[in-house]
């Protein structure tokens, strides 16, 4: 039986008055690809950031194995939605920078980088500055960077968004290969088809709550639907909340001033 690698217990995350995640209980087992599926503002990224340790939960706890997550961050590899590469550094320098912070020797990181780069078909680009990289190349570099220190779990935030078919396929193939080698992947995506293709388990998030957590076939069975799309629609039938976190960050004075200088836009009535 697979052991639980990451565990969220009674996790809640709020930004000012806005509750981004409400009472989340989730177990991520090792050797699985777990898909986080949800619309914009559902809470996928917030959940990933809690697991990555970028956010601290407002309530509840996140553990890695039996340890608090904060002390186990070196066992994670993260590919955020924005690939986050330094364009005045080469691809290898970007990868080495993160590996060094992880405490990995350059030689070890290099060997692993070359191996991963060959799998992704970008071994000739490691010495190039990332400034001119395409979206696909950036994503691949970011993926290698997250894996070069040999993490136990990989967190991916929409890794194929905006990629061409070939690049997206290369990324998916690598992720499935990692799983086959015993790795654990948490894979956030908008695409149900992609989730079905890649993930062993699908966690549907809507309005900050987990609506379903099972394998694709179980999901169809539970909902009695013929397709994942139908199941998703059934589980997320209530109106999606507005995306408001960014708004909560703005200072009161700045918000007041912006609104003061904004002409009134009429509200859309129920009849329209």
């Amino acid at each position, binding site marked *: 039986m697979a052991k639980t690698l990451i565990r969220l217990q009674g996790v809640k995350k709020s930004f000012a008055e806005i509750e981004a995640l409400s009472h989340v209980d989730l177990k991520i087992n090792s050797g699985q690809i777990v898909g986080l599926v949800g619309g914009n503002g559902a809470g996928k*990224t917030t959940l990933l950031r809690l697991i990555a340790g970028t956010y601290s939960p407002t309530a509840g706890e996140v553990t890695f194995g039996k340890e608090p997550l904060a002390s186990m*961050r070196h066992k994670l590899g993260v590919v*955020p939605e*924005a690939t*986050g590469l*330094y364009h005045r550094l080469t691809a290898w320098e970007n990868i080495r*920078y993160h590996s060094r912070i992880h405490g990995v020797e350059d030689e070890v990181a290099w060997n692993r980088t070359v191996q991963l780069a060959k799998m992704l078909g970008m071994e000739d680009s490691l010495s190039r500055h990332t400034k001119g990289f395409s979206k696909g190349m950036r994503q691949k570099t970011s993926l290698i960077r997250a894996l070069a220190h040999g993490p136990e779990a990989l967190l991916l935030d929409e890794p194929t968004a905006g990629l061409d078919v070939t690049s997206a396929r290369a990324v998916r193939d690598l992720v499935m290969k990692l799983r086959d080698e015993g790795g654990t992947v948490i894979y956030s995506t908008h695409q149900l088809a992609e989730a079905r293709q890649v993930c062993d388990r699908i966690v549907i998030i809507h309005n900050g709550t987990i609506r379903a957590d099972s394998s694709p076939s179980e999901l169809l069975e539970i909902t009695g639907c013929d397709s994942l799309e139908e199941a998703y629609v059934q589980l997320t039938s209530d109106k999606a909340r507005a995306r408001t*976190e*960014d708004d909560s960050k703005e200072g009161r004075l700045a918000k007041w001033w912006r609104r003061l200088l904004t002409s009134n836009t009429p509200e859309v009535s129920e009849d329209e």
Partner: protein
Amino acid sequence: MSDSLKRIRIIAGKEIVEFVRDWRSLLATILIPLIIFPALFIVLPLILQSEAAELESLELEVVVQGDVHDDLVSALENDRITIIIEDLPSDIENLSDPGIDENRLRNSEIDAILRMRNSGNNTWNYSIIQFSTSEHSSQARSRVLTHLWEWEDEVVNRSLLEKGLDPDTTLDPVKWDGDITSADTATSGEQAGMVLSLFIPMVLAIWTASSAMQPSIDMTAGERERGTLEALLCLPCSRIELLSGKWLAVAVIAGVSVSLQVVGLIFAITYLASSSSFIAIPAMSITSILLIATAVILFAIMVVAFELALAMRAQSVKEAGTLLAPSIILIIFPALFTQVINLDGIESWWFAIPLVNVLLALRELLLDRIIIEHVAIWALSSMFYSFIAAWFASRQFKREDLVASLS
């Protein structure tokens, strides 16, 4: 080396590498500070000298109207001035009224007009009509005035001699005895320190703050804007390590920039001291020099931490620039104010005011004055302010909203 220090060094190293790979940043940080003082103290005076020589060699045209003495006309003609003699215009109220001659000056037909009227009894009234925004006209006025005053001296001397008086004892009965410069007990080195203390503290303070600004913005708001910060925050390094690494990088960049500026300044002063008696090399003890370095380092710790904190609050590079640019004004005003504070008998509490304390400390030290009480106050207060700035910066770096969006 502990793991934490190693991570700080890695972060700082990467920031510096990225910074120096941008040639524009390098130009602003290395070249400009290095050449600014040599350019100001050596090249600018040379340009001014050359311009002055050019003006002195100009051939000018001056109209002389009224009762102008032949000796004065000859003197003007011998100074590369072409003289046109005319009668005084009839329609002017007084000699300063340009009348119909105004257009001739404004159209550069002539460069100046000297008007003189003999009012009898060996006295004259005069005026010089000019167009002051024209360099030719200003130069003409200047030359006419010089010769007019020389001629006036001759007239005065002649009158005194006619009345049997010695012009020398009559006009200058009280005279300085000996060499005026030897009467000052301050050495030329001390005098140089005094001159430099009037602007070096301000320049050091402004340059430290401004050279730290661009890298501070790039390493904080720039990272946010480019989306590199989130990946960095996912790494197993604490926010304090991240702040320390970035602080170290900005401090190194600002430190190099300020040091190069000081090198350029020393070169310029040494050159001026060796080529003219205008300024000497300031006389300072090793202790004063070390204390100046300490004051600048403490100031840099505070300024860099403060700028990093402010830039980290911003959502974008543009917003960070809007936040940080006015902070230079906050330095310029106290810096200007500090230049006029009298250091003799100054109350000690001045050395506890933020920013003012460092500026006053630099002024005192450039004069080679080491007053233990003042040193203790500015050193301790600067450490306290640096600590406050570092604490503020650490709070900004611990904010969760450094990464944006909810999806």
